């Protein structure tokens, strides 16, 4: 079943324009595997992206897709989930898309806790626009836009998500697609907002943080004895102390998702409800504003 579903995803996918070796290939492949393992066929899944190389994720995944505006994948993804809770909704994009122009949406999506998975292909650079400093580039990072080195400190997405109350925070690495697929499976199964920040090397423009560099510098939480992913304070401290250089599930907690907080929502997906019925209610509502 799972193998056939992977084939089904691949058959629906478009041919890629990513550079050979781009980490994003591994992200798409891992997601196809994860969805197949969860027996979720392409027609039950929708991927929403912003703009960037990573913004092509939906074209290459082979499920339903929505390519939104730069930094705007999250509002669209949340709206889709709220309208049709029967769909599995994945938002995806880059560090520029999600932590730059889209950072406001990110923080609110974290606290709102709509049941979607957000995959950020974090390469610490703007790939599509040919290699400029991004919000996660390290201080001192030299690119065309920062020839004397980036002056700012980088955004720390994991700490932001933990501080914002996220119920599932994980980090993956394109160089280990097996672990990444396992993380994705857990994230999709998690009820509520789940963040997977993926270190996904840009082989064309980021020549400092290569696969080799990540391999040498990332601590694999699956091999850390005694790490407790249910302790938010400990998770925060661990991420901070390791300067975010971790991979694995960092934190998980069962929380009621946004939809569960809405009266009347549970009955049926909004798209299946007869919206012609509450005309009277709407008139009453309008009258209340008069």
């Amino acid at each position, binding site marked *: 079943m799972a193998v056939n579903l992977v084939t089904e995803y691949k058959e629906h996918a478009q041919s890629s324009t990513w550079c*050979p070796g781009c980490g994003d*290939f591994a992200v798409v*492949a891992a997601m196809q595997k994860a969805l197949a393992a969860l027996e979720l066929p392409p027609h039950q899944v929708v991927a929403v992206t912003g703009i960037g190389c990573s913004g092509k994720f939906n074209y290459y995944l082979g499920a339903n897709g929505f390519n939104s505006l730069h930094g705007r994948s999250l509002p669209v993804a949340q709206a889709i989930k709220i309208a049709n809770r029967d769909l599995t909704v994945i938002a995806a994009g880059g560090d520029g898309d999600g932590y730059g122009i889209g950072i406001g949406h990110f923080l609110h999506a974290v606290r709102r806790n709509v049941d979607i998975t957000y995959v950020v292909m974090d390469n610490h650079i703007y790939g599509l626009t040919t*290699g400029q400093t991004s919000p996660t580039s390290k201080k001192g990072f030299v690119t065309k836009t920062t020839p004397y080195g980036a002056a700012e400190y980088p955004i720390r997405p994991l700490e932001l998500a933990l501080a914002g109350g996220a119920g599932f925070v994980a980090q993956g690495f394109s*160089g280990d697609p097996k672990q990444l697929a396992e993380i994705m499976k857990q994230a999709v199964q998690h009820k509520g907002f789940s963040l997977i920040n993926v270190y996904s090397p840009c082989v064309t*423009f980021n020549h400092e943080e290569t*696969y080799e560099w990540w391999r040498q510098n990332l601590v694999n939480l699956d091999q850390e004895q005694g790490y407790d992913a249910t302790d938010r304070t400990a998770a925060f401290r661990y991420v901070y102390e390791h300067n975010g250089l971790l991979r694995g599930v960092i934190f998980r907690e069962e929380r009621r998702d946004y939809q569960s907080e809405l009266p009347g929502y549970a009955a049926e997906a909004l798209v299946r409800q007869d919206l012609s019925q509450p005309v009277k209610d709407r008139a009453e509502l309008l009258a209340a504003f008069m």
Partner: protein
Amino acid sequence: MWLNASPPGAAVPPGAVSPKDAARGAASPGTTPVEPVTWMTEAVRGSAGGRGDRPRLSADSARRLARACWSELTNHDPNVFPVQAERRGVRFYLQEERGGQRLSALVWDGFQWRTVGSLRLPASD
């Protein structure tokens, strides 16, 4: 049988699929089936150090180098991404794609790795 061969060379060699077309999955028109090591040998010979700051390799050395890279690519740990081999300023990637695999050759141009050609391989059984 190997499909859609496009022998790479120093820049975009004659008959090669251009990087843009290669990325789009295009086949090089009118090319004959080529065996990967031969194709890779041409890539190594054609670039031999990327920016031309290294001497051109003899056919034999280039072939030895290509063979070593091919062996590295085909004996790669399946759980590690990407499948990559690199020698003398030439880099190869072997990647799954719909209906088969794609072998890409890239050359370091002093600023970035540029795709100089790609070879589509049939699906491994």
